[in-house]
């Protein structure tokens, strides 16, 4: 009958038994001929195996390995672009960055669609300034022409100078001056663009110059010849056509 401890011979020969187990097995071997014989055989076999000539590695083995790795590294598309935009961070930190960016986006969106009072005020100022500047903007042009139309209508409807106050007339003159200034700016910016529009603005300029040039500020009201000039040139009709 085979000894139950015979498989321990291998562990003993290969030094895999603990110190205590090794001593116990050593004692066991003294009294177990089967294990003793196996032990001798395995030790002898171990010596034979140790005498085996191992094949030497080829000379260029390491160099070939390194070359192949370099080549594969070149062929492989390293995720450099990804790392450039999103540096490698610890997962927790990555989430923190994502959350911060998300809330920054929310804040920006709120700022754009629900601007605070100070920003709205600034926006109105910018809008007023823009009324003079973007001549190619139809909305701004329409707004300008509407203002001119209103002004000219006011001027031409003042048929009874006796009914006007001096203050009221001065206000009209001031408005006309501002409108003339605005008209000149617009005319300069129109340049070689829309010739028809340029012509219209030029006509408005002449009329406004006439209003201011022929007006005796001491006498309230528009002189009849100027009012006639507005009507003769059919300026109001042209403006109305352009707006509509």
């Amino acid at each position, binding site marked *: 009958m085979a000894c139950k401890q015979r498989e321990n011979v291998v562990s003993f020969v290969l030094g895999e038994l603990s110190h205590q187990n090794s001593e116990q097995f050593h004692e066991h071997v003294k009294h177990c001929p089967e294990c003793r014989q196996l032990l001798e055989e395995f030790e002898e076999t171990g010596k034979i195996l*140790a005498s085996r000539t191992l094949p030497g590695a080829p000379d260029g083995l390491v160099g070939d390995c390194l070359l192949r790795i370099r080549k594969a590294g070149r062929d492989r598309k390293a995720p450099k672009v990804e790392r450039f935009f999103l540096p490698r961070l610890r997962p927790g930190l990555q989430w923190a960055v994502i959350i911060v960016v998300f809330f920054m986006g929310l804040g920006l969106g709120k700022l754009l669609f629900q601007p605070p009072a100070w920003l709205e005020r600034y926006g109105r100022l910018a809008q007023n300034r823009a009324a003079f500047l973007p001549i190619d903007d139809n909305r701004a042009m329409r707004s300008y022409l509407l203002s001119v139309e209103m002004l000219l209508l006011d001027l031409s409807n003042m048929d009874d100078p006796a009914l006007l106050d001096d203050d009221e007339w001065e206000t009209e003159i001031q408005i006309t001056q501002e409108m003339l200034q605005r008209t000149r700016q617009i005319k300069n910016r129109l340049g070689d663009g829309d010739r028809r529009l340029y012509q219209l603005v030029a006509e408005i300029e002449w009329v406004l110059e006439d209003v201011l040039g022929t007006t005796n500020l001491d006498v309230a009201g528009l002189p009849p010849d100027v009012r006639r000039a507005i009507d003769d040139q059919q300026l109001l009709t042209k403006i109305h056509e352009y707006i509509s």
Partner: protein
Amino acid sequence: MGQRDEKWVRQAQKGSKKAFDKLVRKYAPLIFRLLYDMIRRYEDAQDLTQETFLRAYVNIGQYRGDAKFATWLYRIAYNIGIDFKRRKSKMFDVEFTSQEQKLALQGFDGSKLPGYTGEGEAIEAALQKLTHPQRMAVVLNYYHGLRMREIGDILGCSEATVRTHLFRALRRLRRELKNYSPRV
């Protein structure tokens, strides 16, 4: 030695090519010998050694340090060797029951090996008579100094199974090499 390996591995995981080069220089000869013992074809063993390090390089980030780096690397090499043997077996469409037939078919000539003296033919023949797991257990233990637990990790079996493989392998080798006396 193990600590140095771990240091190089950590550096390689951070992208240091120099650190990985050091690992290649250290382990390439050992991996070559293992693969040569598995497939017995000198040129193919060279090629598979390169393949092993390439795969290790690509997957170095997956090494978590649960086992020693050497064990991890040996496992890669062993799997590559097994795949190669499977492919070759299908290619030749032959059931290799006789190692001599197999070696003859594959053009094996041991005399071409560096360091060949002819003295070890009996040992080679005896080793080839072992089953594959038995031979691997012997090779990994005697020529690579791995412990049974590590061999079990590489072969995918328990430590007890490795002990059984070794026990049977040594008994078989003893029978085959009864009349062999090493020249010292």
